[in-house]
């Protein structure tokens, strides 16, 4: 199935843009905010930031290992550092620097993986990041956050600037709603999933840009009398086990959706918790399968793998049978 790209509804903004705007506002208040880029300020929507705060941006050129090492050094001296680079390069080429210079050395860098997942869909696997959550989940001392909408993005950037520990933020390029709930976000905290919609017949746990089709699927199923909870599990690590405990306590079906390999992302994180807590329920992980990923726009790739209103609602119906 192919889903044609559509013009974004009015008021929807790519989370990357919200990230850049939020950082601008933070930099105005705090001269310790420092961005490090690897020829990535354009992709990261940081050109206006660079003009406004030339002393709070460091360009290292196309050198991602150096990007992370330099960021760690800056952070060790008290600067609030955001190291910004496409997720595909940041989390693969610089993985050892993330592991040692940031996480192990406990330098409070916020690593910002932009154009994540299959945002660069037509450019092929070199530019996809479907491994990053799996790779980073296995590294101690790294909080991993994948915001769904503009509100979560702004809240996550603010939280990262103030938390004082290493964080990985992951954003895509597609315009997203201001708030998937239709209301301003309240009580955002790393490690606490956000309920987008409450229901009684099961749950869909998603993150990033897959929360939107998950919500659309839940709305479609609601019309059939199936009432689902939809969660934006924006924080991949630490996992919100209290929420998973609550959602799984009645044994109702659970579906996870993510713009990531089915290996090592939120699906397997949730499954691991369920299995080790004797929660046996109808369960499925949706994501990108272990194969050479098709190319096309992000929407087309999502459509191909069923990460769509139709695909997700169909998968949930199967869990109910």
């Amino acid at each position, binding site marked *: 199935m192919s889903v044609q790209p559509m013009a974004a509804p009015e008021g929807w903004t790519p989370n990357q843009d919200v990230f850049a705007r939020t950082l601008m506002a933070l930099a105005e208040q705090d001269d310790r905010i420092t961005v490090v880029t690897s020829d990535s300020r354009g992709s990261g929507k940081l050109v206006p930031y660079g003009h406004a705060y030339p002393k709070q941006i460091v360009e290292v050129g196309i050198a991602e290992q*150096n990007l992370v*090492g330099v960021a760690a*050094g800056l952070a*060790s*001296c008290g600067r609030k550092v955001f190291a910004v680079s496409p997720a595909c390069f940041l989390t693969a080429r610089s993985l*050892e*620097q993330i592991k*040692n210079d940031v996480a192990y*050395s406990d330098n409070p860098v916020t690593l910002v993986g932009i154009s994540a997942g299959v945002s660069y869909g037509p450019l092929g696997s070199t530019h996809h990041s479907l491994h990053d959550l799996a790779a980073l989940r296995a590294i101690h001392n790294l909080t991993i956050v994948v915001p769904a909408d503009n509100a979560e993005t702004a809240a996550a950037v603010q939280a990262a600037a103030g938390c004082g520990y290493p964080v990985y933020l992951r954003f895509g390029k597609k315009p997203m709603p201001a708030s998937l709930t239709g209301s301003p976000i309240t009580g955002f905290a790393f490690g606490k999933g956000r309920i987008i919609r409450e229901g009684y017949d099961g749950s869909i746990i998603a993150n990033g840009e897959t929360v939107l089709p998950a919500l659309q699927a839940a709305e479609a199923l609601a019309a059939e009398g199936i009432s689902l909870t939809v969660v934006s599990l924006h924080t991949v690590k630490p996992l919100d086990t209290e929420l998973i405990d609550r959602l799984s306590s009645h044994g109702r079906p659970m579906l996870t959706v993510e713009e990531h390999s089915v290996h090592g992302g939120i699906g397997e994180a949730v499954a691991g918790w369920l299995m080790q807590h004797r929660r046996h329920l109808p369960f499925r992980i949706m994501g990108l399968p272990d194969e050479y990923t098709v190319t096309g726009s992000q929407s087309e790739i999502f459509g191909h793998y069923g990460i769509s209103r139709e695909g997700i609602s169909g998968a949930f119906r199967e869990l109910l049978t």
Partner: protein
Amino acid sequence: MHPDKLIERSAHYRRHLLSIIHHAGAGHTGGSLSCIDILNVLYNRVLSVSPDTFTSGDRDRYIQSKGHCVEALYVVLADRGFFPAEDLDTLCRYGSHYIGHPTRKVHGVEQNTGALGHGLPMSVGTALAGKLDGRDYRVFTLLGDGELPEGSNWEAALTASHYRLDNLCAIIDLNGLQITGPTRDVCDTQPLADKFRSFGWAVREIDGHDIHALTETLEAIPFETGKPSVVIAHTIKGKGVSFMENNIKWHHGVPDAEQYALAMEELGADKSMTR
């Protein structure tokens, strides 16, 4: 400390690091002996840092990229009062903070290192922060010649000259040997001085065991205003112990009791010092 006194300190440090390696049954003996004179001069003459000022934002920083030669760093930090020398009896023991690479759990250590090619990028960031914050501290980092093929070093070398980081000094412990054999046979990095010059660095080459030359050179940072400095220190792996010098067996060889006694004797220990 006067340079003549430093020569005596180097002998003491060599004995001490051999002692802890022998006691632990593990360590990087050859490289620690090749870089110990450099660390001696840094901590006793050059660096503005002490146990009391280690948390000061204005302190000079030392980041050891060749983290495997941590035993050299440990004995110097102990001597400078960062922790009791007896702590090093736990080197590489279960649960000890004194492991085979530097970690910030040990007082006086700036960054967790051990994987090669990491010290220079982190030092560049640290030096850049000093420039951005208008602080006068200097940043020194020690690299082995064997780690120079790591591409991250050259990425960082470009950034250092691009940002005119004359508060940064890289010291290359050029002992010419790595675990496989002579560095020139494994991956020849010569002409090294020309490479750094072409990357925009100010270069000096010295005898890395000449305390006077080390003192004079490291106190002269920056060599050129607006340029990062690199000291190519020609050293001898295993320096100070005749049967260890220039022998790759001692890259991480550990002396047995007989070898230990012989080494300590060569380093001027009396019999009572060899336990």
